[in-house]
């Protein structure tokens, strides 16, 4: 996020002040500008401190600082990283010790992936069970008759778990024009996995789809090259397909208002936008998942803990300041991948289709309910599990049976 957007959305901005001097002189320079920074609950340091407080025990916990540091000095580099408000930024820019002020760089860890093959057991996956969904299946609610928009890397239409699940498929070129005659396929495996979580049918006694009766309008909108016109083409297409829900696990890091009008339009069209919040941890989020208008989803694990990677952020706005809106099952999620295979994956991308599938089941149960009502019922059903905090999980974990009672 640029500095103005950070100040507007968060009330503070994280900056890198480049000093006019290095080493010993830099330390003096840093002391001179110290008062321009402030300790705040909205910084990365604050988010990190919060995470440490919930995980560190004993003597180490006692050593944690009470407040996050307002800045860090790197004298050999002549740099000070810290958090400022609008007033502090103005003073920093004018300060004689400062050469320039830049947005603090945000880096992402390139995480390793496990490669040992595991064996699945017969039954229902932990995430589907945790949401209380099977009880609704027994009442005849499995998403039948509901069309869910699925914009991702594609979907393997030949996978046995998705037999009969794909109602429509589309692919677009770099300027968003449809590729004629496109057949369902996946350019990665992400799309097949998320599709399976929404509407996967049971295979060999293993059930991992939340709404196995629902159908998907699926489109390839992302395949390594990051082309916005494809995403818009996908959104345009799913609206034309008359979907009730849009499940999307992609976004721009930080807050970017470019998609805001589109998400507001989806709401006006009574489409429920269910978006992943991001995997960059505490104090981060992605757009459009972090819009007020989105139903944003973070991830929690089988032990009932919010995943450390799950993004969360507090915004300087009166409505819905905390994202995500809730958390869904997002660690070691079993679903299908191309070529008849299966995999466990972890991410807010895996949690998001759980919630999209839940919405599909509720829409089947109450076909006259509007998207806002479905969302409201899901929100009301949520609870924070033991050990979860609102700043990381917001409303917490939804309950399918309870949600239905609110409709």
């Amino acid at each position, binding site marked *: 996020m640029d500095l103005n957007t950070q100040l507007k959305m968060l009330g503070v901005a994280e900056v890198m002040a480049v000093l006019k001097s290095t080493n010993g002189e830099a330390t003096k320079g840093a002391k001179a500008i110290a008062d321009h920074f402030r300790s705040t609950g909205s910084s990365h340091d604050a988010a990190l401190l919060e995470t440490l407080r919930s995980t560190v025990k004993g003597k180490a916990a006692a050593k944690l600082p009470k407040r996050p540091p307002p800045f860090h000095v790197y004298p050999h580099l002549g740099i000070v990283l810290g958090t400022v408000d609008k007033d502090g930024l103005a003073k920093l820019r004018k300060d004689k010790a400062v050469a320039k002020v830049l947005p603090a760089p945000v880096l992402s860890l390139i995480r390793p992936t*496990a490669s040992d093959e595991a064996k699945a057991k017969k039954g229902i996956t932990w995430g589907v069970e945790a949401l209380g969904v099977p009880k609704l299946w027994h009442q005849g609610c499995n998403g039948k008759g509901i069309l869910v928009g699925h914009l991702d890397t594609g979907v393997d239409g030949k996978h046995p778990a998705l037999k009969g699940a794909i109602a429509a498929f589309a692919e677009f070129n770099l300027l968003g*024009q449809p590729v004629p005659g496109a057949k369902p396929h996946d350019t990665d495996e992400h799309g097949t996995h998320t599709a399976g979580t929404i509407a996967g049918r049971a295979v060999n006694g*293993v059930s991992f789809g939340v709404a196995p009766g629902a159908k998907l309008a699926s489109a390839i909108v992302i395949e390594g090259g990051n*082309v*916005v016109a494809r995403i818009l083409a996908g959104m345009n297409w799913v609206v034309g397909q008359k979907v009730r829900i849009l499940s999307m696990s992609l976004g721009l890091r930080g807050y970017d*208002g470019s998609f805001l*009008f589109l998400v507001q339009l989806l709401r006006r069209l009574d489409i429920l936008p269910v978006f992943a919040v991001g*995997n960059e941890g505490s104090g981060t989020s992605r757009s459009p998942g972090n819009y007020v208008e989105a139903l944003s989803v973070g991830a929690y694990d089988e032990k009932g803990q919010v995943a450390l990677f799950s993004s969360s952020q507090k915004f300087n706005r009166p409505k819905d300041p905390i994202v995500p809106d809730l958390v869904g099952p997002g660690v070691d999620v*079993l679903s299908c991948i191309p070529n008849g295979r299966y995999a466990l994956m972890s991410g807010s991308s895996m949690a998001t289709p759980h919630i999209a599938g839940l919405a599909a089941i509720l829409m089947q149960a109450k076909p006259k309910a509007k998207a806002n009502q479905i969302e409201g019922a899901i929100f009301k059903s949520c609870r924070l599990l033991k050990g979860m905090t609102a700043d990381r999980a917001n409303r917490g974990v939804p309950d399918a049976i309870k949600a239905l009672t609110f409709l």
Partner: protein
Amino acid sequence: MPTPKAVLDPLLNQRLLEAPDSEAMDAVFTLRPSAKGSGLTPAATRATVERLLLRAHKLTGATAIQVTVFDNIQSFAVSAPAILIKSLIGFKEIASAMSNQQQQDLLIRPVARREVKLPK
């Protein structure tokens, strides 16, 4: 009350600052709702895009190379000389403008993955 400026993607802004007027680039635009606050119909979206491109052409002399209208979502993508893109951004009908190609990975990739065999 004056119309607020269009939300402008910093990447597009940077590219426009650096590019000569004749350089072709791809941008994606969203349109504001109608004056009454309601959404634009597909027909109104198509008509608005056509009108804006004509207006920009008259102002700059430049012509769009390729246009895709997303008429269900009040948006369009255009491949055009930079001067035409700049002209479009200034119109009050435009809500936001983004560079079509983004530098960051937009996919929210999984943090862990392990292949699994189902029971027979």
